[in-house]
């Protein structure tokens, strides 16, 4: 396997809950509570999970847009969380982000040329001043926009085109890692496909590694080499895309996958659906032991007291990382690819 570019170890983000006139801290929201993974060069790691499970906070911490409560993040052997402001600025060339909402991620008062060219203003030694305009036009061409539109403003573009501008800005500095925080969930389906295909093309051409955060299981399956499933700030399962989708071992992953709509109307309703009881517990007061035990049909006494680690589990044939004491592969979804989109 290719070398590791990003190595996250036990990343934690707790937000204080402050109450009363004196703003005393009365508790902590455990948004991300100990996430570890490796990202290899040129691969795509998909992170899925429902709303509020900490995916986006994780993404922002991988960019150090949010300071972690604890944990370490090694980028090419350098600890990102230990860098000074100026060293961090240099590091940022190699790790960039694409945001979810193409309507708030572009400054409405700047032209496309200013937006895509800003990385070169901040890091002036990347491209000499005379060559910048041409480089911006090359980037626009690369993401499938008309290079002549360099003087237009964001409001003159559609959502899909705006997302392409955001991607052009993200890849302007030739990063090694691109964090994609739900890059297609604000777009409609036909445009989603275009943007996902563009991202795959760019990965092939530029050798980018993606951390692809989404709540859409089918899109993640389509683009990812490996997939991590998050529940309440922790990874429940992490493995090769095929492993996780065809032989999920964590009950939460199984429930999640069983909810993917069946695209074939004849088969619809014939598949077994696992319907979970109750709601996601509050991250301010997560359950003891396994975080999923309050909704799990397999839960036993052990699950309430002992927290399962994210370790290799499975039936011995093909194992992958899973955080369940009673991990057991169970096929819940047909081997279709990008058949439908849902979450």
């Amino acid at each position, binding site marked *: 396997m290719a070398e590791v570019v990003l190595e996250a170890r036990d990343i934690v983000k707790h937000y204080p809950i402050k109450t009363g006139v004196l703003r005393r801290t009365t508790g902590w929201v455990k948004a991300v509570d100990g996430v570890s993974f490796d990202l290899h060069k040129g691969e795509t790691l998909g992170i899925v999970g429902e709303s509020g499970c900490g995916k986006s906070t994780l993404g922002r911490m991988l960019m150090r847009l949010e300071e972690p409560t604890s944990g370490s993040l090694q980028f090419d052997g350098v600890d990102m969380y230990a860098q000074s402001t100026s060293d961090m600025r240099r590091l940022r060339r190699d790790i960039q982000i694409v945001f979810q909402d193409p309507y708030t991620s572009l400054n409405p008062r700047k032209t496309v040329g200013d937006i895509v060219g800003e990385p070169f203003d901040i890091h002036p030694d990347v491209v000499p001043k005379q060559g910048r305009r041409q480089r911006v036009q090359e980037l626009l061409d690369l993401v499938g926009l008309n290079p002549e539109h360099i003087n237009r403003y964001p409001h003159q573009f559609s959502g899909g*085109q705006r997302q392409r501008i955001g991607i052009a800005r993200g890849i302007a500095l030739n990063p090694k890692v691109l964090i994609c925080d739900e890059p297609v969930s604000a777009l409609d389906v036909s445009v989603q496909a275009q943007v996902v295909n563009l991202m795959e093309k760019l990965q092939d051409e530029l050798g980018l590694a993606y951390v692809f955060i989404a709540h859409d299981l089918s899109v993640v399956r389509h683009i990812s080499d490996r997939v991590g499933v998050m529940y309440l700030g922790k990874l429940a399962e992490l493995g090769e895309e095929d492993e996780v989708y065809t032989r999920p071992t964590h009950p939460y992953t199984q429930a999640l996958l069983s909810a993917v709509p069946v695209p074939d109307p004849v088969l619809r309703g014939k598949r077994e659906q696992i319907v979970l009881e109750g709601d996601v517990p509050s991250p301010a007061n997560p359950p003891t032991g396994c975080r999923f035990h309050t909704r799990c049909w397999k839960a036993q006494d052990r699950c309430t007291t002992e927290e399962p680690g994210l370790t290799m589990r499975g039936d011995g044939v093909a194992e992958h990382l899973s955080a369940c004491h009673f991990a057991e592969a169970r096929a819940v979804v047909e081997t279709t690819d990008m058949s439908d989109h849902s979450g």
Partner: protein
Amino acid sequence: MTETSRHVTDGEDVAPTDDSQRAMVDETLRAEGDIGEARSLTQDAWRQLRRSPLFWVSAAMITVFVLMAVAPSLFTSLDPAKGDLSRSRETPNAAAWFGRDLQGYDIFARCIYGARASILVGVFATLGTSVVGSVTGMLAGYFGGLADTLISRIGDIFFAIPLLLGAIVFLSSFRGDDPGYFQVVFQVVLVLVVFGWPSIMRLMRSSVLQIKPNDYVSAARALGASPVRILRSHVFPNAVAPVIVVSTINLGVYIAVEATLSFLGIGLIPPTISWGVMVSDGLPLLRASPHVLLFPAVFLSLAVLAFIMFGDAVRDAFDPKSR
């Protein structure tokens, strides 16, 4: 939010090809075809302004007042400082269009020359409050924490003191024996800035708090932009519109406050010519010779009205909801 948008797109999926194809064609058309010249929001605001009669009327009035301030001799050849006591309180006539006051000064000439003090005070007080208020408001809103607490509480202290009371105390304590024209104007401007900046600061702070969570600010941070750069090229241009609007309206208010201070005898003092001083001089004669008070009062009202109307037009143009 994404949940709902997904449902909507799901709905479109049911009746698919035609609509989505057309959408794609539309998109390519928009991308390839000509959709007119590139326009920024400021240019949009300007287009809106050009169509507003309110804007043109107020702009014309403001131009006239500014011209009066810059070159009063364009409007009258009479000397405003030449008094003829024998013709004291003369009513309007062919030689003295607006009549003469108690000292026999020509009221028309003095109305023209009085514009300078009002415009100077109004413009500089507005510039001062805008600059001080914007900078402090941006620092408070963007950095938050201790900077925010400090700036906001200091602002509250100044905000709690009524403008007129503060101005009276300030001007009566710091007035020298024989201040010159510009020194007096500077003092009045200083008072207005000292007591007027907190309202602009609060406006800017709230505006910045709205802009700050936008992803383009995060994107700039992710690119490694310095706080100065983020504030200058991302936060300020998007947060400044409400400040422009309120400052334009405030310009009229500051002119009125200057006249009030001069009327109370603590702003500009004779021999400086100012509408406030003229109104003050005319008050005892209100019954016998109302024209002495009437004309400067009309000039003052027109100037204040012009700037407030201008501010209204600017607000309408910058507010996309009114389009």
